[in-house]
């Protein structure tokens, strides 16, 4: 081996070591609760996994932590607990009980870290919520009655189809590799099936295997032919069927008006896009890569947060809290309509406008929604960017200040659709443009929603019925605009 080859080998080894280190640092825990689903980074101390306890509890309810020397006192809703740095014993004040952690508590920069292994029983003690299910090996924590279960049924028709029925709408990321289709569930609290792997008596769809790791659940379906996937039953049923052979786009016009509930799986075993599917109720979304699908996916940005309170709707009611509540309602409403949605700020964190734009852009959503609230006026105002529309003349490279320009028309169509649905729900709605960042920096259709009280009274704004009703109408509007959003992509 000459010097150049040795050098190359050394570089490859170093790169491999870096990659493995990076992977090791990406340990995460997923927490599923009725309010929200989120993931948190896991850190290692003395070879054990730890997580910030306040980070876990914050999305679940009101939490406050204070440090007193080496003691760390935590209050969640009405319950209190006291931890001591480097000790395993936890005092639970409300029940006057004591609790032993499997490893010592860590107090670092006023931040309380608890061993991940203790999380199941600790959350149960601190919140009183039941049931708490914790899959420790895969780091998936289910808080309350959130579990989504599914059944697998192979229907031996021609062509054969694998029907997956979920107890709640699911929207996995679907990717294909030679000989397999992988369904990845990052946001859904999917529970393992009773049996795995399952073997099917079929030559095309041969088996399915469920696995969990690092907060994510994956169902792999093994196949000998390209498969087509479609959703139905409001996202509760996912059907995998063998893609029709040798069909060449006889219904090309269908591609411009995709069904709201349809997603298709294109790549064949050699990684090329599949032929257009002809199954009823499904149309092809053109592939952009050799693997995976273009996923209909919305990012909900709860504006303000942390030190940035937004408008003071009243002395005790900052805008940041109201919009987070609206964002959670909207996420739920979108998910019940089979639309995946990620909340950009799902805790009281401070994010800059540039950070929000960068995070949203990196998720490649079809739609970005920034939620705001105001005490002035009545009803809901939907805004789009003040930028004029311009074609995609710059190709993949868009100027930061005008990245929204190619998407303005789609955003306006979506805003009109949302306003129309709000009016159907007897909620006053108005569409305007606005000089509001970070909308101009988004590379997907972006709308801002400013919710004002239904009448002159501010308490109406925080009424759960009103929030639910507004979120439901907005979700209906987005669902109705889905064809435009997909076509405008």
């Amino acid at each position, binding site marked *: 081996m000459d010097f150049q080859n040795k050098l190359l080998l050394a570089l490859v080894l170093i790169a491999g070591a870096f990659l493995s280190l990076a992977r090791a640092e990406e340990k995460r825990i997923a927490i599923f609760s009725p309010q929200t689903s989120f993931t948190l980074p896991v850190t290692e101390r003395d070879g054990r996994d730890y997580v910030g306890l306040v980070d876990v509890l914050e999305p679940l309810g009101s939490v406050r932590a204070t440090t007193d020397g080496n003691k760390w006192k935590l209050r969640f809703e009405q319950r209190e607990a006291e931890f001591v740095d480097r000790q395993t014993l936890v005092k639970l004040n409300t029940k006057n009980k004591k609790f032993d952690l499997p490893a010592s508590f860590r107090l670092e920069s006023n931040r309380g870290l608890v061993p991940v292994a203790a999380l199941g029983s600790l959350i149960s003690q601190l919140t009183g919520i039941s049931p708490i299910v914790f899959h420790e090996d895969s780091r998936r924590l289910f808080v309350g009655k959130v579990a989504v279960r599914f059944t697998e049924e192979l229907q031996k028709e021609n062509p054969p189809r694998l029907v997956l029925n979920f107890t709640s709408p699911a929207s996995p990321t679907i990717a294909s590799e030679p000989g397999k289709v992988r369904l990845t569930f990052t946001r859904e609290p999917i529970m393992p099936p009773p049996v795995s792997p399952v073997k099917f008596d079929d030559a095309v769809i041969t088996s399915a295997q469920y696995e969990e790791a690092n907060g994510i659940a994956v169902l792999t379906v093994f196949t000998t032919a390209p498969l087509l996937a479609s959703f139905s039953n409001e996202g509760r049923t996912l059907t995998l069927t063998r893609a029709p052979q040798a069909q060449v786009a006889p219904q090309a016009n269908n591609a411009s008006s995709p069904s709201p509930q349809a997603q298709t799986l294109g790549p064949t075993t050699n990684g090329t896009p599949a032929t257009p599917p002809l199954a009823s109720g499904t149309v092809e979304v053109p592939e952009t890569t050799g693997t995976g699908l273009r996923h209909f996916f919305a990012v909900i940005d709860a504006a303000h947060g942390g030190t*940035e309170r937004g408008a003071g709707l009243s002395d005790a009611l900052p805008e940041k809290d109201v919009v987070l509540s609206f964002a959670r309602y909207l996420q739920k409403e979108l998910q019940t309509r089979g639309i995946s949605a990620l909340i950009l700020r799902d805790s009281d964190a401070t994010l800059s406008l540039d950070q929000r734009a960068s995070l949203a852009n990196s998720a490649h959503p079809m739609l970005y929604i920034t939620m705001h609230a105001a005490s002035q*006026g009545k009803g809901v105002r939907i805004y789009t960017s003040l930028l*004029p529309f311009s074609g995609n003349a710059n190709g993949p490279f868009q100027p930061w*200040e005008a990245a929204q320009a190619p998407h303005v028309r789609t955003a306006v169509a979506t805003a009109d659709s949302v306003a129309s649905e709000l009016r159907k729900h007897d909620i006053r709605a108005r569409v305007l443009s*606005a*000089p*509001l*960042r970070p909308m101009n920096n988004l590379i997907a259709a972006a709308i801002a929603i400013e919710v004002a009280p239904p009448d002159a009274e501010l308490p109406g704004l925080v009424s759960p019925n009103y929030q639910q009703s507004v979120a439901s109408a907005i979700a209906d509007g987005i669902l109705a605009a889905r064809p435009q959003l997909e076509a405008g992509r």
Partner: protein
Amino acid sequence: MIPRHLKIGVAVMLATVLGLTGYLWRLKGHAAQAPQVLEAAHVPPPASGPKEQVTLYIAYDDPGIIARRAASIPLPQGRQERAQEVLQAVLNAYLAEDSPHAIAPGSEIRNVYLVEPGLAVIDVNAALADGHRSGILVEELTIVSLVQTLSTNVPGVNRVKILVEGKERETLAGHADLSTTYDTANVQQLADQLKTAN
């Protein structure tokens, strides 16, 4: 023995360096004094001169619209001073007792700079921005009324930048973008949208 011509050369260079240092020092002193001089000279422009017809774009919180209103106000001679006076007339309407769009007491236009070609810079005081109500609509009503009034009354202005106490801010009060330079054509479209509450 150092040659004579070298001594003379070094002496000339030293003298040049000392002279330039002194000159730079004086320039620096002038630059430091300049803002103070401006600050000291800054007083609200007197409302003198003959009354003239102007067009103001006034925001109405209820029902959240911008309406065009004719007004007759005394205007000075200078183009920049006239621009400042017209904008102050808008703020005065908001500061009045029966204000349709209340702003903080003490709100004021500090200066308007007309920069060629077509760029105007409105410098408002901290009272206006710090005391402004927060919200997308309520903030954009203020921005649109100022920009639209300026571009209507001062021909040739097609871009407007808003500063607070001479400095750039990210937003007016948490929402409306102040980091951008407004294109008056885009603001005109927004003003059209804001003509009615529908």
